[in-house]
C-alpha cells in the first residue's frame, strides 16, 4: 500500500507537469495482493455503490462461494483506467477489474489482461455483438457482465398534447416531422448530449451508424448526413444549443423537468423514468431510411489482469463464473437498474421477471460494440476526432462536411504511425 501509492502519486504529478488539477489520488488502493488470508482484490467503476450496497454484497457473496474474501475498491470510470495502467506498471494489478468496454482493448493490447481462453472460460454463450468489444486479434479478454444502450425516451404527455403518435416514428423523416409538431405545440422537441468527451461520440453513433456510415471513414456522405441531421436540429431550434456542453446526466435532468418531448438516453435511466412526474415511454432510435439504428453497447467487462502467481486464476475463475450464471446476470441486471444480461438465457430470465424490458432487450441485441470491426485501440483516437467534429459542426465553427473532413484527417494523422 505505502509504496505503490507514493509512486503512483509521483507518476501522476509527473505526467501532469505543472497542471494544478488533482489527477486521481489513489484513494483506496489495495493492500498488496498477497496470498495470505485468501483475499482477492476487485476494482470496479461504481463508487456510487458503497460497501453496504446490494452490489457490494453481491460481489462479496461470489467471493464467499469461491471460498475467499473479496476486497473491493471503486473508482470512477476514467480514474479506473489510469489506476489500472499504474498498477499494471507496478506489477500489482488486482485479481479482477470491471472495465468500461472501450478500455478493454487498450489494456489488452498493453499485455495487462489474461485471455479468457487461457483461463478456460467459455465465451460462446455470450452474445456475439456484445463480446466483440472485448476481442483483440482473435482473443477474448473479458466478458460483459451486462449491457446497456441508447434509445429515445419520450414524454407521453407532451406527445399526446401535440398529437404525435410515437409508433409513427420509423425513420428520420417521421422523427423530424414529430419534432416539428412538438415545436409547433410550443414545447421543446429533443435533447441529447454532444459534449466533447466519449459521451458525445456515444450519443452520436446511433445516428452515424443509422445513416450507414462506418467508423473507418468519418467523412463519408452518410456520416455527413448524420451530422447534418443534428446540426439542423440546433439550427431550427428543435434542440437547445446547450447540448454542445451537455453530458448525458445533464440531458436527463433537462428531460426530467418535463419540458422536453424526447431525450436520447440509456438503459440506466429506466428507474428514473418510471419515477418521473409524467408518463414516459421509449422508441428505438430509427435508422435514416427506417429500421432500428445500431446503437453502441455500453457496460462493463469483467477482466482478469495478468498475475505473477498463476495459482490465483483458479479461484478467480470461480468468481467470474458466479458473476455470469444466468441467475447471476439477472441479479446484476436488477441490482443495477438496469443492465441487460449478455447471454440469451439471461435475457430470457430477466424478461420472465420484467416483461417491460422487452424493447431494451431488442435494442441490446441489435447494438454494436464501439471497438468492434477490429478497431480496437484505434477507437479512442477515432472517437476523439469524431466528437471534435460534432462539436465543430454544432457550434457553427465549420460545416458538417468540413468538420468531418478535418476529423478524418485527424484520425489518419493519429493512427498513421
Amino acid at each position, binding site marked *: 500500500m505505502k509504496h505503490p501509492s507514493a509512486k503512483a502519486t509521483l507518476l501522476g504529478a509527473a505526467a501532469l507537469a505543472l497542471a494544478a488539477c488533482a489527477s486521481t489520488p489513489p484513494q483506496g488502493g489495495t493492500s498488496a495482493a498477497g496470498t495470505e488470508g485468501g483475499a482477492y482484490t476487485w476494482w470496479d467503476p461504481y463508487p456510487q455503490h458503497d460497501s453496504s450496497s446490494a452490489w457490494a454484497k453481491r460481489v462479496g457473496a461470489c467471493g464467499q462461494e469461491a471460498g475467499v474474501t473479496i476486497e473491493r475498491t471503486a473508482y470512477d470510470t476514467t480514474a479506473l483506467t489510469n489506476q489500472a495502467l499504474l498498477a499494471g*506498471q507496478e506489477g500489482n494489478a488486482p485479481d479482477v477489474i470491471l472495465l468500461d468496454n472501450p478500455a478493454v482493448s487498450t489494456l489488452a493490447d498493453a499485455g495487462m489482461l489474461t485471455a479468457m481462453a487461457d483461463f478456460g472460460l467459455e465465451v460462446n454463450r455470450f452474445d456475439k455483438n456484445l463480446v466483440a468489444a472485448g476481442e483483440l486479434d482473435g482473443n477474448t479478454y473479458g466478458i460483459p457482465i451486462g449491457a446497456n444502450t441508447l434509445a429515445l425516451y419520450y414524454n407521453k404527455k407532451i406527445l399526446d398534447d401535440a398529437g404525435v403518435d410515437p409508433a409513427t416514428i420509423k425513420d428520420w423523416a417521421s422523427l423530424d416531422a414529430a419534432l416539428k409538431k412538438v415545436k409547433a405545440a410550443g414545447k421543446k422537441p429533443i435533447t441529447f448530449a454532444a459534449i466533447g468527451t466519449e459521451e458525445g461520440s456515444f450519443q452520436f453513433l446511433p445516428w452515424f451508424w443509422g445513416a450507414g456510415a462506418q467508423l473507418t471513414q468519418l467523412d463519408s456522405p452518410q456520416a455527413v448526413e448524420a451530422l447534418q441531421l443534428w446540426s439542423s436540429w440546433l439550427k431550427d431550434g428543435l434542440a437547445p444549443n446547450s447540448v454542445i456542453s451537455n453530458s448525458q446526466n445533464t440531458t436527463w435532468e433537462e428531460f426530467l423537468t418535463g419540458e422536453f418531448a424526447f431525450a436520447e438516453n440509456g438503459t440506466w435511466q429506466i428507474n428514473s423514468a418510471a419515477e418521473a412526474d409524467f408518463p414516459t415511454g421509449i422508441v428505438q432510435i430509427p435508422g435514416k431510411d427506417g429500421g432500428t439504428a445500431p446503437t453502441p453497447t455500453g457496460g462493463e467487462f469483467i477482466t482478469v489482469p495478468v498475475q505473477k502467481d498463476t495459482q490465483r486464476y483458479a479461484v478467480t475463475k470461480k468468481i467470474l463464473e458466479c458473476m455470469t450464471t444466468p441467475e447471476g446476470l439477472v441479479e446484476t441486471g436488477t441490482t443495477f437498474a438496469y443492465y441487460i444480461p449478455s447471454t440469451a438465457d439471461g435475457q430470457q430470465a430477466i424478461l420472465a421477471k420484467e416483461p417491460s424490458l422487452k424493447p431494451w432487450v431488442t435494442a441490446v441485441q441489435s447494438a454494436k460494440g464501439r471497438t468492434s470491426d477490429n478497431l480496437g485501440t484505434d477507437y479512442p483516437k477515432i472517437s476523439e476526432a469524431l466528437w471534435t467534429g460534432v462539436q465543430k459542426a454544432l457550434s457553427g465553427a465549420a460545416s458538417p462536411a468540413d468538420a468531418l473532413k478535418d476529423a478524418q484527417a485527424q484520425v489518419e494523422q493519429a493512427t498513421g504511425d
Partner: protein
Amino acid sequence: MGATRTAGVLSPPAHRAARRPLRWTTPAFLAPLIVYLLLFYAYPLYRNIELSLHDYTPRAFIQGNPEFTGLESYAKILSDDAFLRALGNTALFTLGSIAVQYALGLALAVFFHRSFRLSAVLRAMFLVPWLLPLIVSASTWSWMLNSENGIVNAALQAFGIGQINWLTSPDTSLLAVTIANIWLGIPFNLVILYAGLQNIPAPLYEAAGLDGATAWQQFWRITFPLLRPVSAITLLLGLIYTLKVVDIIWIMTRGGPADASTTLAIWSYREAFGTGQPDFSPAAAVGNLLILIAFAAGLVHVRLQRGEERS
C-alpha cells in the same frame, strides 16, 4: 586591521573545536529538505522529461520498454495545427486574466486600505472565491452561463440582448472561462496587494496631502511606485498559476467547443487523461513547454528585480 589579524591568528584553533560537531549537524539538518526536494521536485521533473523523450504508449508504459524517440514528441507537438491555437489561447487566457485580476485587485486593495465601517467584513467576503472548492465555483459558472437557462443570459435578455452561447460558441467560450478565472483570481491579488499597501509609510501620504496632492496624484506618485516590487511578484505568481489552470476550463468547456478554449495545460491534460487512451509522451512534452514558459517568466522577474536593486 592589526586587531583583525591578531584575532584571525588566535581564533582558528578555537573555531575548529567549535565547528567539528557542526560538520555533521549541517547535513543532518539539510537532509530532510534535500530528500524532499529530490523526491517531490527533481524526480517528477526527471520523469516528465523522460516521458517526453520516449514513446510511452499504454503498452510501453506497462511493460516498461518504451522506444527512445528523442525530440520527436516535441516536433510533433510544435508542428500540430492545434499548437499555435493552444499557444494563442494560453496567451489570451493568461495575460487577460492576470491583467484584469491585477487591476481589480489593486482597485479593491486601495479601496479597502482606507478602513471604514464593515470594511473587514466586506474584504472577507471578497475572499469567498478563494475558499470555494473549484468544482463548485466552476460548475456554478457553467450554470450561470448556460445558453438557454443561465442567469447571465436571462439578465441580458432583460436589456434586449439576445441569447449568447457563452460556453458553446467558439467565439465566446474562451472569454467565458477567462471571466470565471478572473473572478477566482481577484482575492489572491487583493490580499497580496493589500498587504503591500500596509508597508507604505503613512507619513508619505500626510506630506503629500499637505503639499496639496489629489488622491489621484497620490496613487500614481506614491502608491503605485512604492508597490512595484509587490506588484511584480503578484503578477509573476499570477502568471504561473494561470498558465497551469486546467480544472476550471475542463469543468466548464472541456476545452471546447472544437478546441476554442483549449490552452496548453488543457491540451496536456486531455492527451494524458481526457480520452480513452492515455498519450503520456505528448502530454509530458506540452507540460515541459509550460514549465519552460513559467521558468522564462521567473528569469525575467529576477532580472527586473536586480535592475531595481541596483538603481
